[in-house]
């Protein structure tokens, strides 16, 4: 018998716990040639803002050990174009669509929530309060529990759709931020967004990104992400979408054991465009090999009994 990969998160039924991380999968269309989108647990679209944004000047990325830095700057065509151009495609795919939003002010988030509530076929809204690459909004909200509470609360009043709050690791206490989000009405949290980093060219003496610094992603940040998922899972009763260097099924298992109900694949999409599908297949094989019936039986099952067989 095939193991059951289905999970529920923020009231959304997913046929498997594998999503795309916002900003790494466009709006799905870009990968349609290479990925059977119908097989995904959910598609999380690239961040959309009220007005179009042209993004940051190039170079916007650079490679770093087992990762990459990016400072894209939330380039997007704005909510009107998103609803008109991308939603019809996403609707047709037939998997839950999670729309990630960001704004400069609380009122932007509220307006975006209102607009998306009337579109139909939006399964949930993910609040990006953690982008390190824009001057206003983004991480400026996500680093302060009071502001997180304010923006999540305002969105909660503006929409009946499930709200997922995407958290930044660039804080002293991720649990404090997560608690503020849950207290204000978040249905789930996703973590982590990128870790702020910097790389400098020894020839030119200039930063490798035009913006100076950017967000680190990829396998390099996975241990940070797993630790933060574990901390939030231990302290709070909220569904968690784990992300940060998820590339294959075994990475996903790590996050799920730490307490994530679902995982999102980000940078790995750039390396292996079929990473999501390979992960879903691998997860099924993992469960079969261990004679497990359901992926849900793995959630939070890390053994913290002090015995450590390998070191």
């Amino acid at each position, binding site marked *: 018998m095939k193991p059951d990969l289905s999970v529920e998160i923020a009231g959304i039924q997913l046929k498997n716990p594998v999503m795309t991380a916002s900003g790494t999968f466009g709006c799905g269309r870009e*990968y349609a040639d290479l990925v059977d989108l119908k097989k995904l647990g959910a598609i999380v679209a690239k961040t959309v803002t009220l007005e179009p944004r042209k993004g940051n000047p190039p170079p*916007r990325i650079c490679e770093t050990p087992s990762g990459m830095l*990016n400072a894209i700057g939330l380039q997007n065509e704005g909510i009107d174009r998103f609803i008109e151009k991308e939603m019809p495609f996403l609707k047709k795919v037939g998997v839950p669509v999670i729309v990630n939003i960001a704004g400069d002010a609380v009122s932007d988030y509220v307006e975006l929530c209102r607009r998306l509530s009337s579109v139909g076929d939006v399964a949930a809204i993910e609040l990006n309060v953690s982008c390190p690459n824009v001057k206003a909004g983004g991480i400026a909200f996500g680093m302060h529990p009071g502001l997180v509470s304010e923006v999540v609360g305002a969105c909660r009043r503006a929409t009946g759709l499930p709200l997922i709050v995407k958290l930044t690791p660039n804080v002293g206490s991720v649990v404090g931020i997560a608690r503020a989000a849950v207290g204000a009405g978040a249905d789930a949290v996703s973590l982590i967004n990128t870790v702020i980093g910097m790389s400098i060219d020894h020839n030119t003496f200039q930063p490798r990104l035009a913006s100076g610094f950017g967000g680190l992603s990829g396998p390099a940040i996975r241990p940070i992400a797993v630790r933060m998922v574990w901390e939030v899972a231990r302290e709070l009763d909220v569904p968690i979408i784990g992300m940060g260097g998820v590339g294959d099924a075994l990475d996903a298992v790590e996050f799920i054991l730490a307490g994530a109900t679902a995982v999102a694949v980000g940078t790995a999409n*750039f390396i292996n465009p*079929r990473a999501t599908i390979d992960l879903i297949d691998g997860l099924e094989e993992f469960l079969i090999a261990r004679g497990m019936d359901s992926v849900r039986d793995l959630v939070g099952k890390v053994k913290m009994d002090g015995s450590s067989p390998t070191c």
Partner: protein
Amino acid sequence: MNAIYRLQAEVLNKEELIPGVFRIKLFSEEISRAAKPGQFVHVACGKGRDFILRRPFSIHRRLSGNAFEILFQVVGRGTEALSEVRLHDFVDVLGPLGNSFEIPPDLSSALLVAGGVGIAPLIFLADELNSRKVRFYAIQGATTQQRLFCYMDLKRLGRQIFATTEDGTAGHCGRATDLIHEVIKKSAPERIYSCGPEGMLKVVADVAAAFGIDCQVSVERRMACGLGACLSCVCQTRDGYRLACKDGPVFRAEELSWKA
């Protein structure tokens, strides 16, 4: 939309043209069949190592319908790792990606301007122009005679080829752009195609504009996904940022906003 393939392509040949410059022949019927001049492949170079992103390479030549070549210089760890592949190894390739050089059906004459390893995509284009009976001239510039890669291929395919070297070891002593006015006057091309260092492309673009000749250039950018999703590889154009991977790598020269 054109098909994109992700596959493991067998290495059929590897040549080191001069130290640090390699030409690798890869087997793939799918990519070879679908490829158009100007397109690129996105290659995983560091499997199992700590550099994780793919590297983009122009398709250099298409061979006998089931293989293609890339030509590259070792510039960092990714290209170094790729240069170490052995015969019959398999390389993880995504492609063909991006747009292609536009060749109008009635085109009768063209000028190719290549700088350094920028020759790579222009050989595929030269093959195509030759098979379409488009008469073309070319200016190939390099630092030194040894780096005039594929010069004999150009000779075979084109009408007249002008070489320039910065050290004067072959052809005109100087840069490719030194000859461009003269060759345009001589050959009256309907179109100019160019690939090479950005400084050279800018001069080519300016001269083409001054002569009122359509000009297409192929650019290179740091890139992550190659598919238009990550928005890393933007080029500044008159219409704002556009993507080298999807809107390019070939742009009409007048679209691009060059750095001063």
